[in-house]
């Protein structure tokens, strides 16, 4: 995770993002997906609180 450079030289380099071509990219894909889902759950809970308060 801390040593994530996919290249050893800039000469002829292609993908240069952290963890390119390695298994760690999956971790970021899963984190990104979770960071989309969790706020939706938070929104539902917040709305339910407002509905209960005023309904």
């Amino acid at each position, binding site marked *: 995770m801390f040593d994530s450079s996919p290249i050893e030289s*800039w000469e002829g*380099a*292609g*993908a*240069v*993002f952290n963890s*390119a*071509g390695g298994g760690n*990219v*999956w971790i970021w*894909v899963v984190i*990104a*997906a979770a*960071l*989309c889902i969790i706020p*939706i759950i938070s*929104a*539902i809970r*917040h*709305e339910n609180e*407002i*509905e209960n308060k*005023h*309904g």
Partner: protein
Amino acid sequence: MSPEELRAVIDAAANASMEAYYWWATGIMVCIHAGFMMYEMGQSRVRNVLASGVKNILAFAFIIPTFFLFGWWLYWAYGTGNIFIPDASAEFAQYYVPWSDGMGPNLQDQASGVFWAAFVLFSATTASIVSGSVIERIRISSWIILATLVGSVVWIIAAGWGWSAGGWLVTDWGYHDVGAAGVVHMISGFFALGVLINLGPRVGRFNADGSANDLPGHSIPMTIAGLMIIIIGFFGFLGACLLYPAPMAGSTADAGWLTIYGGPATLSSFAFNTLMSFAGGIIGAYFITKDPFWMMSGALAGIFCAAAGLDLWYPGTAFALGFLGGVVIPYAHKMITSWGIDDAVGAVSVHGVCGLIGVLAVGVLLGGYPPLTEGGETISFTGQLVGAIAMGLGGFIPGYVVSWILNKCGILRTSDAVQQIGVDAEIPVAAYPENMQSRDYS
């Protein structure tokens, strides 16, 4: 300089130009969302203003990562002729899985990031189109789900079908829709219709006898200014519907501008017809209503009525189509309202109906243009009709089904009690601290 070195210089210049073109087109397209936000907030009553704005901002924000995670992949997986099942083996579908070398900074690939970005903005536009119709009573959580669905799944599958050289509508039916009248506007308009049926009207919109009450927004000037800003954004949108590839290797010929289908076009043709249809829409709506809301909606409607054939219309034809769009929208909106459907901004009329007109107009007036590929189909009314049916159902069915499920789960609609005090009750700050009051329409 050797021919090879000259070739490398030309390629580098062409790639940098292309990258810059789509970067700035994407930036201009952000105006679509700034405009929609103003438009929807202006159309909201004081007690709902910020909820409408938050809803619009969140749609934009959620579509970006979800389009990264699966939307862009869907486009390529449906662009090889499949209708229902994505083709995961397609070359570019494999290249655009979110963990591939093509989906991040790559010094050998100057195209993927800017094309992805342009498509993200197309996607966010589809959600913004639906967004206005559901203001003042949809729950934000459900809205995020529906926005993600239309922006990162539904429209992009339709784009694979009909906005890609390898899509089944293009190869089998000669479907022609360069400016996305069907794949963006029909899909979004009919998706909105499906959602509105389950969402129901705002409190106070209809009387017991079925007659409708007007629920005017709190700022018509904000609405009109927002609509004009949307128009600015659509210049970026339509500009990004064209491609300018580098000259082909081994050839000195410049391919020039190409449509999304790879057919020849010019940016000038888009300029002629976008402006003429824009003007036609305003004048048509003024002729019928004299109402600035409908005049600016007419500007959009005019562009959408001409969008499918922006590369081929005579500008006078584009003007007439735009005029037709401006005339049609208030009547179409009135008809939809008479069905008991509360579309707060007329999105079904402006985008759904005018997108339909645009797709069918190509079939009626542009039949017989030669196919883009050997063995392909010419433009025809039948092909455009099949495309229109695919776009209408492709938008309506997912919108209806998923909103029905959300409704059954009890998270689609804000309760009547919260609507009475205002949906801004869910927002921790006030829109207008001077305690500007909203009329009670209940």
